[in-house]
């Protein structure tokens, strides 16, 4: 179905999406899964109070093997196989956090975070506020999310908007191994609760990781590719798709800017506005359903802040407003570079 199969096939996006390693010291070529594992290992080594907690994260190393080998190194008291109950995991992690620990919770799949929703929305996000700042909840909730892996239902969800709508939570997501490595460490070091979304379809993609580079600010976006004609705004699994689209568009003489938001709450909207003011056009791309997805908020903010600069309305390329469909049709459901380019065409036609 793709008009740009060659572009996908040769994948010139691969190099663009990687963060160039500043120095050769400590540079390794890792999958995102291994980068996260390395980041977690660093965090566990660096601070005794850091605990990993979740279903099957011990001997098995998690169903995606993100925690592989960590229980062997750090013991069952710090890498804890929990009973099978997400509200219980998050709720007891609150107690651990209130007593000085820094629990890093793993939710096994996106679709299984909802049983913990009350604890996340009414407790994790609010304990600081509820206690006038007396208590904080330095917790990270790791969630493998998104589709594209041929899974059965409840295993391909993109729940980010639920969390980004909730004051008191921070919500971040990584798009490449390098970011994965330092972002997970920064999230664990943060004194606020962070929902850390891991794009599971990107777990096995490799990239350069400089384990010795100083970390970047966690809540800042990254301009993956500068451009002048329109701004593609995306995050997590769709960054690669947007870079691929930008590469394909370049063939047609279009110079697209691609921004990886990294943080969905808070949104680095200053960088977004600056870009859109330059290009005059913005297209938000995400897997989550369109209605009240992150694209809605970005569109609302951009049209308010860049009203006179916008040459076209902010367009959204998102999952359709359906529950995630069976895997045999997920390719049509998920935004791909053709749908992005189609939106670019529509934007430029204004």
């Amino acid at each position, binding site marked *: 179905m793709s*008009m740009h199969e060659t572009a996908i096939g040769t994948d010139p996006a691969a190099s663009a999406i990687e963060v160039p390693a500043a120095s050769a010291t400590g540079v390794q070529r890792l999958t995102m899964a291994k980068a996260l594992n390395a980041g977690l290992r660093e965090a566990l080594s660096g601070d005794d109070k850091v605990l990993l907690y979740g279903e099957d994260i011990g001997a098995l190393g998690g169903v995606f093997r993100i925690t592989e080998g960590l229980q062997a190194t750090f013991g069952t008291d710090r890498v804890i196989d929990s009973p*099978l109950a997400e509200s219980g995991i998050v709720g007891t992690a609150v107690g651990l956090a209130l007593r000085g620990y820094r629990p890093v919770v793993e939710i096994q799949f996106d679709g299984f975070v909802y*049983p913990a929703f009350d604890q996340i929305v009414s407790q994790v996000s609010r304990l600081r506020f509820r206690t006038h700042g007396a208590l904080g909840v330095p917790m990270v909730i790791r969630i493998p999310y998104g589709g594209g892996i*041929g899974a059965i239902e409840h295993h391909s969800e993109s729940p980010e908007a639920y969390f980004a709508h909730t004051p008191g939570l921070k919500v971040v997501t990584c798009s490449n191994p390098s970011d994965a490595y330092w972002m997970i460490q920064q999230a664990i070091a943060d004194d606020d609760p962070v929902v850390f979304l891991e794009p599971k379809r990107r777990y096995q993609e490799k990239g350069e990781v400089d384990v010795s580079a100083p970390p970047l600010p966690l809540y800042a976006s990254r301009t993956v590719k500068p451009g002048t004609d329109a701004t593609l705004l995306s995050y997590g699994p769709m960054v690669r798709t947007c870079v691929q689209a930008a590469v394909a568009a370049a063939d047609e003489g279009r110079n697209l800017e691609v921004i990886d938001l990294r943080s969905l709450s808070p949104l680095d909207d200053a960088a977004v506005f600056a870009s859109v003011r330059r290009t005059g056009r913005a297209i938000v791309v995400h897997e989550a359903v369109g209605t009240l997805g992150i694209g809605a908020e970005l569109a609302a903010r951009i049209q308010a802040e860049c009203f006179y600069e916008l040459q076209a309305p902010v367009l959204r390329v998102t999952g359709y*407003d359906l529950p995630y469909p*069976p895997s045999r049709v997920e390719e049509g459901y998920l935004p791909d570079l053709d749908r992005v380019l189609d939106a670019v065409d529509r934007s430029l036609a204004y």
Partner: protein
Amino acid sequence: MTQSAGNNREPSVADVPIQLLDPSGRRLDHPDFHYDGTDADLAASLRDMVLARRIDAEATALQRKGELGLWPPLLGQEAAQIGSARAVRDPDLVVPSYREHGVAWCRGVDPVDLLTTFRGTGMTDWPSRPDTFYPYAFVIGSQTLHAVGMAMAQQRDGAVGNDDPDANGAVIVYFGDGATSQGDVNEAFGFAAATSAPVVFFCQNNQWAISEPAIVQSRVPLYRRAAGFGFPGVRVDGNDVLAVQAVTEWALDLARRGGGPVLVEAFTYRMGAHTTSDDPTKYRTSDEVAEWRAKDPIDRLRAYLTAAGAIDDAWEAALVAEADALAARLRDGCVSLPEPDLADFWDLVYANTPDLLVRQREEFLAYEASFEEAR
């Protein structure tokens, strides 16, 4: 001051699973439970178990060949599933989790249909599903509350506690050892107890929740949970199809008559991987697996029936042929499953599709069409 009021960690007699057929195929007596069927009935059970195992093996193979995205094997749990399913009769309702392929088979679901879910051509519901068998559930424990609600509906429908036993029905809901930690499952226990709903909670304790042994969920036998909510719980040898059927018949009968809920813990073993994505060698020993292989549910029933002269080589040969035919049908059926069309899904979200979705589908179709034109 010390005492041990209510401390219940000591083993009790009830911790020993009810057994009517031992691993060598010898029938046993039990003071409370008896298998009422004939050897012919047991041969029918054996047939169901063998065919369920064959369906399972074939689906696992189809996954290996790339025809399925995933398969959760039931290997080892045939007695728990066939024994309990054969205790069900109309108008009972069956609410499965995701591994109940044997139960589905007994309740008349075409096994080819089950593959839609795991091939990704459809969701969790299949054309052949009878009205009394509910869709597979993947959010652990969620279905137990639905089952209690259905049982509350049966109460309101007057289908419980009638003098005419045929007018009575109950609900049987399946879940695993891991599920017992979920809030939903415990809320289901509470709601069922409080309303005396006619529901049999059928827990297949297959010793593992993916990589976690049952001890991660509970230090005491799971059947005991029921007493804390005020209803009976029993532990049955889940590899003994006679005992499972006898216990489930008793439990369903109690529920149908208005006696309220029952928890049955079928003590069994997941011989295979959690799913085809899983690698159990990471977390359990081959010794453990070998130990349970010696308790195989099919072997022991075959041993009994053979010794009793109820089955013979001809019977076995016919069953092999039947299983082969079923397997072939499954292979063909799998690759012939109709490919879904995304365009059809917009009409499945609501009973009355709102404008936004109508428009979205139209845009999708126009977009798709633009590629055809471009060719």
